[in-house]
């Protein structure tokens, strides 16, 4: 069974609700489920509702019914505007620093693979399959499996001073490329995203590190939009805040 089939099997198993399966003890009001799905609740409360549906088949079913009804009504998938952007915006300094967890490195290393191989990731089951992001983006990668595009020109893991946290990388394969750099903490809180860079270098403004301790390990990744319209994406690089 390939990965997409396994995902479908998982979905069928999760969304099945046979007779005799008891409902949860505290079912959510249908109104609340509807409000969470439509974005009328604040993000934290939406997350609470989703958390409840993880273990309550009845409320999970109510969620699916609401989604189906809204999808049918609008004629498309209910990608709705919540009236606010993501709470963790791409230009916002991360919240309080979270304690470093050793296993996060391993998870991050796995996440690096997301950027390798033209947007394909090695799935948990079977051969690599792309996660259906629904955004239709297929970044192309330069070179074969052994060659990484936009390689860092800084020693991996090197400490960089807070006041001059300057990132450098190899230029894209075509002149005239525009770069986007994303810097985040190891638990994936975005520190800063810089777009439209014309040179393969970026100095992170020191104020972006507010709240982060010295010794914080930071991940950064570069995307290059080429004049031809193609895109190159680097692996994730790691350096330490000094």
């Amino acid at each position, binding site marked *: 069974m390939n990965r997409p089939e396994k995902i479908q099997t998982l979905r069928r198993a999760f969304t099945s609700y046979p*007779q005799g399966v008891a409902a949860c003890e505290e079912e959510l009001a249908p109104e609340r489920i509807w409000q969470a799905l439509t974005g009328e609740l604040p993000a934290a409360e939406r997350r609470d509702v989703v958390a409840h549906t993880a273990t309550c088949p009845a409320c999970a079913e109510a969620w699916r019914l609401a989604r189906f*009804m809204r999808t049918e009504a609008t004629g498309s998938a209910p990608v709705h505007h919540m009236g606010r952007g993501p709470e963790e915006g791409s230009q916002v300094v991360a919240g309080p620093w979270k304690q470093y967890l050793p296993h996060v490195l391993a998870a991050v290393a796995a996440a690096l693979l997301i950027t390798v191989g033209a947007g394909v990731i090695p799935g948990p089951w079977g051969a690599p399959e792309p996660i259906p992001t629904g955004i239709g983006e297929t970044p192309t990668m330069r070179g074969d499996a052994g060659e990484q595009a936009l390689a860092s020109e800084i020693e991996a893991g090197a400490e960089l001073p807070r006041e001059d946290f300057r990132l450098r990388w190899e230029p894209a394969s075509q002149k005239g490329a525009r770069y986007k750099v994303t810097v985040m903490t190891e638990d994936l809180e975005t520190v800063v995203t810089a777009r439209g860079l014309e040179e393969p270098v970026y100095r992170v403004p020191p104020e972006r590190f507010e709240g982060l301790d010295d010794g914080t390990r930071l991940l950064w990744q570069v995307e290059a939009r080429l004049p031809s319209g193609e895109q190159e994406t680097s692996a994730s690089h790691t350096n330490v805040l000094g």
Partner: protein
Amino acid sequence: MNQHGDHSPSDGVPPRTASDGRDFSETYVEISQRLEKAVAAVCPRWLADRREDLVQVALLRVMDLARKSEGKREFSSSYLWRVAHSALIDEIRRQRRRQEISLDDDEPGGFDFATSHEADPEQDASGREVGDGIRHCLTQMVQNRRLAVTLYLQGHSVPESAEILGWTLKKTENLVYRGLTDLRDCLSSMGLEP
């Protein structure tokens, strides 16, 4: 009937026009059809076979609310959808509780294959086991991964999940990936293979 041809609340007939000008008769028909499709698509077969009854009860509640509310508050067609969903869920839950009671009375041990409309009891039992296993594994995950994977299993795309959860796309994508890995490992440790 008033000068516009609309019925007043006192004659027991639901209003014909919403605050947004839509003709409610069309809306009621549309709601009825939509509810039937939703139940047929989402609910298990034993419940979907009763969708006409479910929809009728839900629709009566919608009409009753509309009738009682006329003149007291403004409401729109979209509000009726919300009410229709609530009414449907309440009725489904009532049916399920009734089923649980009847199963307890008739089959104290478990699944009532005699009344089940599922095609293959063995397959259904296996699927139920995996479903229970998935829900158990979700409780073992860190919260953020649990949320991302739950929405993914519910059929949402990653961008949809990101918007619902209020997170960036990249964060959500990574959490789905890691969460599915956790799920695989957990199910394997339980001897369950999807």
